[in-house]
């Protein structure tokens, strides 16, 4: 197929040109749109652009980064070592409250008394009731609404 005739016809389209003065006005229009675009930018974008623009000018000695990194590592290690131990000990002591104080006297072989299997009849057997079996509870028990006093607020 000979492309030449078609090429010559299509090439005639290059005579279609924009109105006179268009190319001169194009640059002015570009500047106008750029300014308008800047004015319509959100504040956050402007701040980010300013900050990003400052980064190349912000000169910090190279060793400063190493020093800051070292301080951060040491501080992190100190926090990791100290905090859990103290916190855990405090939490453990708060949760565990013995009902009777521990005997302060150290247990040695001399302190141990022989155990007798005989029943001492002199001792009075204390009657067991609910109050002795179940120590007082400090939890507030829920009550049905119908049991509430009418004067209670």
């Amino acid at each position, binding site marked *: 197929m000979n492309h030449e*005739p078609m090429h*010559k016809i299509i090439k005639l389209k290059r005579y279609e040109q924009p109105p006179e003065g268009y190319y001169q006005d194009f640059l002015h229009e570009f500047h106008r749109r750029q300014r308008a675009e800047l004015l319509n930018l959100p504040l956050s974008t402007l701040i980010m652009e300013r900050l990003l623009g400052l980064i190349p000018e912000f000169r910090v000695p190279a060793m400063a980064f190493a020093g800051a990194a070292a301080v951060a590592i040491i501080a992190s290690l100190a926090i990791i070592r100290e905090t859990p131990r103290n916190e855990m000990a405090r939490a453990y002591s708060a949760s565990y409250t013995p009902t009777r104080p521990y005997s302060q006297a150290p247990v040695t072989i001399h302190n141990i008394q022989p155990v007798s299997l005989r029943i001492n009849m002199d001792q009075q057997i204390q009657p067991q009731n609910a109050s002795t079996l179940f120590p007082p509870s400090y939890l507030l028990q829920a009550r049905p609404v119908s049991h509430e006093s009418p004067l209670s607020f």
Partner: protein
Amino acid sequence: MTADLDSPLNNDMELVARTQGGDPEAFDELIVKYTPRLYGLVYHMTSNHEDTNDLLQDIFSKAYRSMANFRGNSSFYTWMHSIAVNMTINFLKKRNRRQHPSLNDPDSNIENDPDFIAATSNGDPTKEVSIHELQKKLNAAMQKLSHDHRIVVTMFDIQGIAHAEIAKILKISEGTVRSRLFYAHRLLQNSLHEFKRN
């Protein structure tokens, strides 16, 4: 303006370097240099002057914003054309069938062009076709082509860009450029058979 494109490409690189260094006037020079060329590319793809104007503003705006990323792996000419082609094709995909041609009047010099005389009279002065009739038919024939075919016809036939350069801009092989041109010319021939010279 076309003569400017023949100037050494390192002039472009100098202007690019100045723009990257924060000199906006250097970018103005690039705009002045590339506007006529890119206007033709976008206009012949869209067949609409107003769309071309808006799109071209967006193309230069995008190029200016992306200037920091331009590393010079390709020439500025290729890079700029790639941006224009991609943005134009994206625009055409969105515009789809919502299309109202807004054609520029052909330069009066067309009447003296031997190719125009030959195409319109076709050897028979009694069957002369008006400029506007030819323009309308050329435009209709171009719009029938797919975007991929229209872009190679625009760059090769209208703008005179070499196959190798088109291949670089479109990031396809030269063989693909030639085969697209062959197929596009065959389609155009069907639409414009009345203008074909014997």
